């Protein structure tokens, strides 16, 4: 469904896709937290490149993960935010809490 989790070198990447609203955020939260609490990564990277829509439930999702990561001194990185989602992220003030990065995707021979 809406998230694929990859753990590598202490960084847990959550590849999000589809539309993030209140209905979907609930499932994403459970999925991400389950793995994060088990593996306690130092960085949780939320990758939004596959997300077509997000309302303030997505902001709540990011803020909640920020709080969770704080409990063991970890941090949250917001990666590959599509231009469409920039407006709501700016409005939320999340840029003060999380680093926002753009990454050029490595092509990993998935043909």
């Amino acid at each position, binding site marked *: 469904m809406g998230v694929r989790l990859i753990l590598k070198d202490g960084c847990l990447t959550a590849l999000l896709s589809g539309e993030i*609203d209140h209905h979907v955020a*609930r499932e994403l939260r459970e999925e991400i937290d389950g793995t994060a609490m088990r593996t306690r990564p130092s960085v949780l990277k939320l990758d939004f490149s596959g997300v077509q*829509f997000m*309302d*303030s439930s997505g902001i709540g999702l990011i803020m909640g993960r920020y709080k969770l990561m704080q409990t063991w001194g970890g941090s949250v990185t917001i990666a590959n935010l599509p231009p469409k989602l920039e*407006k709501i992220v700016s409005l939320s003030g999340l840029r003060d809490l999380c680093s926002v990065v753009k990454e050029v995707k490595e092509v990993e021979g998935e043909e």
Partner: protein
Amino acid sequence: MKAKNEMRISFPSNSNNEAFGRAVVAAFAAQLDPTIDELSDIKTAVSEAVTNCIVHAYRDTIGMIYITAKYDDHGTLQIKIRDKGCGIADVEQAMQPLFTTAGEERAGLGFAVMESFMDKLRVTSKLGSGTTVTMQKNLARRVMKNG
């Protein structure tokens, strides 16, 4: 507002209807040939209002959510989202950014998003009988290509 076209839908406050509600309004708004950004603003604002009905108005119950939308000759789109839920005790306080009464990881940004993504927002509420959110967006008319 003299409506050139209008529509109404209603659906129960199940959270899987959030996507349905915003998609219907977006499909209606598409008749005004909005930009991608405008359409995204409308979808987001509708999603916030519908989520409020589900999370707040009908917190421990399921009730009906009513949406009407219309537009006029000048490209002004008006959307009304109404519930018959618990109502808001203090609308002004509820509209403050970051204010929230829902425990479940809500950012408290719903009204702030509606306000900044739409051109006009009005909220009327009565305790015990429900809330109506009225939003308006002026869709910039663009030059029609070849009529």
